[in-house]
């Protein structure tokens, strides 16, 4: 391994958002001609570090050095000009423009004040070829491309800016296996050309295949940097976890659900996003869905709720097969299902409408007679829910947008509870809300389960799955790859299964 001077270095970088420390004394040194992997759990500070490097946010403390000279970026454009380009996980492409338009978007070639389409085309073709994606037509519209091809366009867009340091944040999470291999070949070639690369991924085998150096982040600190291949997977996982977690969860009842399954899935599949999903859930059970982000968990919930078309396989309610064609079907009497969506702002709430209107909107037929809403009945139901959920709102006639995030989330949950659903699907319900409200939501889930509801609970937070669930289905690449039960539900098993490395070994080698 060449021990060249670092191209880019950070020293003691810190960043706080309000009271929360996102990054504390982060040190990292990136050498040219090397691929540097950054590892860490969700919220470990990786994305904050990248945003600082890419000029999206400014650090509170610490300094950055490029070629040994101290620098600061006022904007992403300034970072680009210095040769640092980031391929973000959230796509920044314009859907209605063509691939070529998008690739040159920040700096299109001009001729007589107009865009020189021929030169633009050439630049785009070159960039696509460099990204190993010359099968993508430069004139195709971005919105017509599947997610994996869009990701390749993102990479080409970054390459067209001729970076010296390229940051890839989960750049392979949406890619198919053959694309991943192409991207790897490209990254290795760029490394050989002397480019510095930062590679962020949750997939351990990818890092093993690519990285020259690794840095592990935990709780906003850079814990350790080491040359790749000098630590086992188990040691790396240990570095990533390395913390105690306090128990905010109510105790689990010993035995739940001896009854017949209320919902069973048999060999459910949807396109190439879901396949072979088979499981049962009994009344009173809380089943967690785990795994890395974007492995088909959301699609599973949407499929159960009747949002997806052409879902293959069988869904049975109380042993009887049903077809679910819309959320309305799923909500209807015999099935009585509810989905607490992920994005409360767009799918969960009508923000400008009042708390009252939002709460009763999914249950209007319960509180109305002959199509006329019975305000007194509505009020009674809402009062019950307010008590059950301890929603803090000055009045139920204020717009829901004026509530805090945690209380908004409670409204989303309450809105569906008014229907007294038998099956409750939750899509990452505690994301972005405070610990106190989280705890209330956990308590509520237990209450609902005790009352006989079957709960399917997708969460990106491992602690929640461990603390709340009777069983956990771990998904990888659209399949359930492991089902954990009882004492098996622990962080080591969950992470091991999520990364698709043999979990048993992790459990054995790391002393509990």
């Amino acid at each position, binding site marked *: 391994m060449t021990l060249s001077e670092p191209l880019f270095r950070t020293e003691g970088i810190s960043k706080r958002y309000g009271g929360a420390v996102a990054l504390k004394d982060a040190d990292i040194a990136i050498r040219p001609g090397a691929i540097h992997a950054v590892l860490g759990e969700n919220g470990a500070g990786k994305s904050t570090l990248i945003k600082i490097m890419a000029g999206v946010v400014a650090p509170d403390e610490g300094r950055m050095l490029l070629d040994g000279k101290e620098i600061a970026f006022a904007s992403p454009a300034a970072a680009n000009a210095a040769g640092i380009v980031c391929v973000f996980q959230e796509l920044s492409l*314009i859907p209605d423009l*063509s691939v070529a338009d998008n690739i040159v978007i920040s700096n299109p070639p001009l001729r007589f004040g107009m865009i020189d389409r021929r030169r633009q085309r050439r630049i785009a073709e070159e960039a696509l070829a460099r990204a190993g994606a010359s099968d993508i037509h430069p004139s195709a519209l971005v919105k017509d491309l599947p997610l994996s091809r869009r990701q390749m366009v993102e990479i080409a867009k970054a390459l067209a800016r001729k970076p010296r340091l390229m940051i890839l944040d989960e750049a392979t999470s949406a890619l198919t296996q053959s694309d991943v291999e192409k991207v790897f070949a490209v990254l290795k070639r760029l490394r050989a050309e002397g480019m510095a690369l930062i590679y962020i991924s949750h997939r351990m085998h990818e890092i093993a295949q690519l990285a020259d150096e690794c840095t592990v982040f935990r709780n906003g600190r850079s814990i350790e940097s080491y040359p790749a291949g000098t630590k086992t997977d188990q040691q790396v996982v240990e570095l990533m976890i390395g913390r105690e977690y306090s128990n905010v969860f109510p105790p689990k009842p010993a035995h739940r659900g001896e009854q017949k399954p209320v919902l069973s899935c048999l060999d459910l599949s949807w396109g190439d996003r879901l396949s072979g999903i088979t499981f049962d859930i009994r009344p009173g059970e809380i089943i967690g869905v785990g795994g890395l982000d974007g492995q088909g968990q959301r699609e599973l919930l949407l499929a159960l709720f009747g949002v997806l078309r052409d879902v293959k396989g069988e869904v049975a309610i109380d042993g009887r097969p049903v077809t679910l064609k819309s959320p309305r079907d799923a909500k209807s009497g015999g099935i009585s299902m509810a989905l607490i969506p992920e994005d409360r702002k767009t799918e969960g709430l009508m923000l400008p409408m009042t708390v009252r209107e939002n709460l009763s909107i999914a249950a209007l037929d319960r509180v109305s007679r002959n199509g006329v809403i019975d305000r007194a009945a509505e009020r009674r139901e809402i009062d019950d829910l307010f008590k059950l959920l301890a929603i803090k709102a000055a009045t139920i006639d204020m717009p829901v947008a004026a509530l805090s995030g945690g209380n908004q989330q409670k409204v989303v949950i309450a809105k569906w509870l008014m229907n007294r659903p038998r099956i409750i699907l939750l899509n990452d319900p505690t994301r972005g809300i405070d610990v106190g409200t989280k705890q209330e939501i956990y308590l509520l889930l237990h209450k609902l389960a005790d009352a006989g509801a079957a709960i399917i609970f997708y969460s990106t937070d491992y602690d929640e799955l461990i603390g709340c669930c009777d069983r956990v289905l771990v998904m990888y690449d659209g399949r359930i790859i492991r089902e954990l039960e009882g004492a098996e539900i622990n962080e080591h098993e969950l992470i091991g299964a999520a990364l698709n490395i043999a979990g048993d070994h992790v459990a054995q080698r790391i002393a509990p």
Partner: protein
Amino acid sequence: MNKHASGDRRFWYAQQKGTLFAALLFVAMFALYVSNHPAGFTPNVVQTASNKATLLAFVAMAQCLVVITAGIDLSAGMVLVLCNCLASWLVVGTPLQTGVGVVVVLLAGLGCGMLNGLIIIFGRLQPIVATIATSAIFYGLALLLRPTPGGSVNEDLADAFTSKLLGVVPASLVVLLAVIVVIWVPFSRSAIGRAAYAVGSAENAAYMSAMPVKRAKLTAYALGGLLSAIGGLYLTFFSYTGEAAFASGNAYTLYSIAAVVLGGVSLAGGRGSAVGAVFGALAFRTIGDLLFVFDFDPLWQPLFQGVVLMLAIGIGCIGLSRVRNRLEWFQ
């Protein structure tokens, strides 16, 4: 690159589908029209049709520019009316006076468009309300200028712009073509124009990609005002007078939206071309003419126009029946 050659045609087709559809619709309707017209396909018939249709074509182009940015201009028709009234005062006299008058009218239109843009960008008002308000203002000004119909226009100029060149080609069609070449083509190929599309498609992503979001919107609204002003000038050339006509101003606004949709421009923004909008306008006008040659009772015209419009737009929505994730219906 050779392997891209066949793909080029396919993507070009996909991009131009809306425009081509509108063009075909127009050609088919116009063929039906002239073949049933007692005089047949003669320069005079074409001239009359062209003169009637260009007015709407200019307003449709104006609407198209704004709609591309995911906005809407409900004042386009009233800008046309205001410029008509203004022209009936100013576009008279010696060639020099007439020339100055034309320039002032065009600048007035540009100013109206810029006012819309500034209110929407910096006042952060919804385009739909902002332009309803400015529409009333423009109409009010028009009414002050022409409380009753009247005024005049330099008839030599008016006749030149509505006659036939070389006795065959309608001058109005040539002007329409010239405006497309001078305004639309540079706009659509400039960095600003691309930013306008980007804003309409995904404003956040456009902003994050450091595109000139505000400048793009302002340009779209301003050029929209200018194009409506050209429409207003043309109205004066046909009618020789100025009239603050409330009903016709509103009709132009609504028809321009219909024409834009017929021309394959997405009301959600980010997609479409002014050429499509022009064909949409021509097709829309021909629907009315068809009734005339088929001797329908004029009472049937609105009903018939509505049904044809509905059918034409319905064809554009067929794609939605193939969506696999139902949430995409709402995007």
